[in-house]
């Protein structure tokens, strides 16, 4: 077999295999529909400007669709001290769909030691959700966004 013939035979194999690969990739792409690949799903994160270390404890694992959740938010300064008596507001939504949470959650108890009970969080669709905790205390105002995949 000449070099040219070997190349030709390789191309012959390559064509259908490429076609198969393209079908596979196309299907996979549709399934994941532009979910950013580098999403960080950790539930302990630093706030945007770095004022707080914020932790989200969820009441069910995995977090479910269609039920009303009670979460606990723990707020610390960067050097690990609990942030007490902070004012917290919570919102969130689906960045891919451009809508917010179906409910309006809020802090219902200050549990002390920088822990706050948040009630009224609900998710009504499968997919990528965000929950953002806005915190204001003596340390200043900052926000932390958590990613959840349902």
């Amino acid at each position: 077999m000449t070099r040219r013939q070997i190349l030709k035979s390789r191309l012959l194999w390559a064509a259908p295999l490429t076609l198969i690969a393209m079908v596979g990739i196309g299907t996979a792409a549709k399934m994941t529909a532009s979910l950013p690949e580098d999403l960080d799903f950790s539930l302990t994160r630093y706030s945007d400007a770095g004022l707080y270390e914020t932790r989200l404890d969820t009441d069910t694992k995995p977090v479910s669709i269609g039920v009303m959740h009670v979460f606990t938010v723990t707020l610390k300064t960067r050097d690990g001290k609990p942030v007490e008596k902070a004012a917290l507001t919570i919102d969130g939504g689906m960045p891919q769909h451009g809508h917010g949470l179906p409910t309006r959650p809020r802090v219902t108890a200050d549990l002390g030691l920088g822990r706050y009970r948040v009630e009224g969080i609900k998710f009504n669709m499968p997919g990528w959700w965000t929950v953002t905790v806005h915190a204001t205390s003596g340390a200043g105002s900052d926000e932390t966004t958590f990613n959840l995949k349902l």
Partner: protein
Amino acid sequence: MKRSGILYAAAGIIALVVLAGFSYKGGIYVSQYWSEEQKSLIASLSLDALPALPVDPSNRVADDPKAAELGEALFNDRRLSANGKVACATCHLPDRQFQDDTPFGHGVGQTNRRTMPISGTAHAPFLFWDGRKDSQWAQALGPLESAVEHGSDRTALARQVVTHYRRDYEQLFGPLPELTSLPDHASPEGNPAAKSAWSKMTEGEREAVNRVFANIGKAIAAFERTVEPRETRFDRYARSLQAGTAPNNGLSETEIAGLALFIGKGNCINCHNGPLLTDNHFHNTGVPAVEGLPEDTGRTLGALQVKNDPFNCRGRYSDAEPSDCTELNFMVSEGEALVRAYKPPSLRNVALRPPYMHAGQFRSLDEVVRHYNEAPPAPAGHSELEPLKLSDSEVQALQAFLASLNEEN
């Protein structure tokens, strides 16, 4: 050259063998092999995933069989209407999925909305297309006093209970109040004469009548809680898929293709999720307004109404503690997203009950799927839809899948 001919043939055969793993039916991709994510989504839609009936802390007789019995009698009683001809069952026909097959309900007059089916509504945090009630019992009260449905009023309804249901009522709820000195027709809702008569009653009299009125709803709700969905071909398919036994026996290839679209490209599962195939939330999907009907703002008004409803979960006629009322306590009550947003009904049996949407705007499922495919702008507010670019055969496959959600006798 001979050798390259063999290579051509070999390459072609390999391609065919590999592609045969994916089969095409009418030009659409039929997934024989579900991914783990797809399997998990399919399981989430199955009746096996339906949780036990949620407790209704606002109705202490919700699970009392005697209340359900009384409720069923009240549900079918035409005497609870102004003309003696309208019962709940007039529009919620028990042999027609508790709906009436028409664009608008017809009681003593004509309503502006499509009658909703009842099955599974015990799982719904908000009732009616716009969610203006937050329990089955509070929902049942609305039509009784609606001028176009039962056309009755609170004192007349209480009298009917005293006359026809005293024993059953008192066993459940305690002594009925004395009504003889009260006006025949009085209510804070309805016509001016009834309103005026109501305003002349004492606070104690009003509260006593309201309590009987609320208990009528609680008994009807106890009956409605017993109306639950039954297994379908789709549920059997989902169960065998989970168990790994003969998963393709229950659905046709077209129905399976429709299911793949339902949980994928069609985006249907975004709103029609969970075992009842509804997220029980409110969505503006650009459904056209009906000419000649008054402006309909959907959830915008519904949210306001449920918040101010004296018969809501937090009201004095509810048996719940205010902290039990989480749906009401944390609901979104204003904003652009509420404009012309309506509740997605359960899709179980949907193929058997045209017409569709909150005012029967679409005659067939084909019109519904094509609406979602085209995603026209909303008459008001912002439609959540994006054009789906589904082919004709994909539109048909989706409809085929929806028919697999029919309960069989």
